[in-house]
């Protein structure tokens, strides 16, 4: 995998544009680890859209852009979670650079390349300005807010681009939260406290909280760990609908994720990709694997 982020700035139109590029060192407890990868933007014909029934299809059969998926594998303590925290801006890079481009949402924003994190250039953009959503391996719900407020949290907090009042923003966020919770089968529990949920239900809410902000990059730290089969189907489908680039961590051998995403791409990774691209490679379907161990 190309790793030095050097070609990041020149936007030669022929190649698929790079979307996120990391070349740096993260600190895991007492040792440092060099990590490098890049995510590209996929152009898939709208017809072949993995999201079913063309929910997100563009008009006139245009090609639809969506981000690649990166699967991070590794043993316990190999830095999977640390890497995700570094990407979203909870931890700084020890060395190196993290670039981010807005090309995914092609027309919505300017084609800006942003340096998110670089020690040498003394740049660090905080998580509030990074267009990313995260699902931790623990649900980490705010126990003192009801489910709806939990899910709406990200929208209420994020600095917004549209000029709307705080009241309108929070009203919109609450409506959207109730919508997405209903999709996840929690529509009757909007005003419940997270304390009343089972672990799996809490995990669903935590996924909803990340999806609602419609981030360009979705960071998922073993998101299916405590979900039952039915919930896995539901949640993975919702995750698929998002056009965000996804970065998913998982253990070396975790069959449940395989089940979860097999319909879409994970299956292919494991059956073919594992052999052909098991070492930090990419397979044909826009899924890369980064092995941390």
């Amino acid at each position, binding site marked *: 995998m190309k790793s030095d982020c050097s070609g990041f700035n020149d936007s030669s139109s022929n190649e698929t544009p790079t979307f996120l590029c990391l070349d740096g060192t993260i600190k895991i407890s007492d040792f440092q680890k060099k990590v490098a990868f890049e995510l590209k933007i996929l152009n898939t014909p709208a017809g072949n859209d993995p999201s079913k029934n063309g929910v997100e299809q563009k008009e006139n059969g245009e090609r639809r852009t969506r981000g690649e998926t990166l699967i991070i594998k590794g043993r316990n303590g190999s830095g999977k979670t640390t890497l995700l*925290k570094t990407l979203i*801006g*909870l931890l700084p890079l020890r060395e190196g650079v993290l670039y981010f481009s807005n090309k995914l949402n092609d027309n919505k924003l300017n084609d800006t390349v942003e340096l998110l994190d670089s020690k040498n250039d003394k740049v660090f953009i905080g*998580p*509030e300005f990074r267009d990313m959503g995260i699902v931790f391996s623990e649900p980490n719900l*705010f126990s003192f807010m009801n489910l709806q407020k939990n899910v709406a949290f990200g929208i209420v*907090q994020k600095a917004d681009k549209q000029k709307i009042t705080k009241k309108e923003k929070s009203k919109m966020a609450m409506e959207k939260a109730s919508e997405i919770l209903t999709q996840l089968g929690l529509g009757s529990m909007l005003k419940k406290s997270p304390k009343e949920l089972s672990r799996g239900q809490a995990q669903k809410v935590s996924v909803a909280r990340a999806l609602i902000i419609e981030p360009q990059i979705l960071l998922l730290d073993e998101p299916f760990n405590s979900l039952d089969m039915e919930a896995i189907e539901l949640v993975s489908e919702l995750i698929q609908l998002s056009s965000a680039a996804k970065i998913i961590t998982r253990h070396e051998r975790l069959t449940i994720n395989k089940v979860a995403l097999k319909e879409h791409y994970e299956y292919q990774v494991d059956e073919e990709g594992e052999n052909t691209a098991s070492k930090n490679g990419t397979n044909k379907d826009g899924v890369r694997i980064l092995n941390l161990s």
Partner: protein
Amino acid sequence: MPRFSKPFQRKNRLETRQPLQLIFLIPAGLAVLFIALTFLGLLWNIPWSKLFNFVTNDTSLDALQLSLIVSVLAAIIAGILGMPLAVLMNRAEKSNNFRWLQIIIRGLVLLPLVLPPVVGGIALLFAFGRNGLIGQWLYKWFDISLPFTTASAVLASVFVALPFFVLSTETVLQGTKPELEETARAFGARGSGLFFRIIFPQILPGVLSGLLLSFARSLGEFGATITFAGNLSGRTQTLPLAIFESLESGKSNEALAVSLILLLLAAIILVLLHNRWVPALVNSTKR
């Protein structure tokens, strides 16, 4: 047929713990008896027939009113000053910087907790009295003279109550979940929003009990108040001072009656602290 050995022959088959031993029972019983008899002595001697008169005379009512005003103000001030202090102390402890400064500040803040209140009163007098280190300038520049005013009674109470609030708040701050703070940051919360939306709701029960503790401590404040604020009826004579004066001038019945008021207030605070009232209050504000 098997015969069961002795350990199985318990009165209550489901009781799996060891039976209580006499060596614990006797001191424990003595402790409870000591406290219970003390209160019994108070209640026994209270002049129940004239109680209403003693409680509703001007001196008692003035003292009650003043006590409540002083204690509420002291608790509020302790909260306003103590909360940021507790947050900063908590942050500093996590960061491990300026260790020596942390130790000094912690010692300073907690000293009034173990210091005899009279010493606190003397210190206040020589700091904020008319000739005191700070008080002389207050008097010269602003014409403010603190001693023997209600403000000085409040100040004395804040001095003794502040460590209670800070300790109680710091304890709950240590119990907050760092991963919730991290999650909130990942979703864009920062600065004061992070504190008021994520940390404050977690520590609210502890803050409320800290306020109650400060209130209770102020209610019973005697030594620092009488030294710094004096014993002026209607201005600085709080309930404990009123009891002291009644007892001094031989009116033990009045002293007993006023003591009963304080006992009742203490009981109410205890119920608020230990019963579900405070958590219930917190929950009801949430929904």
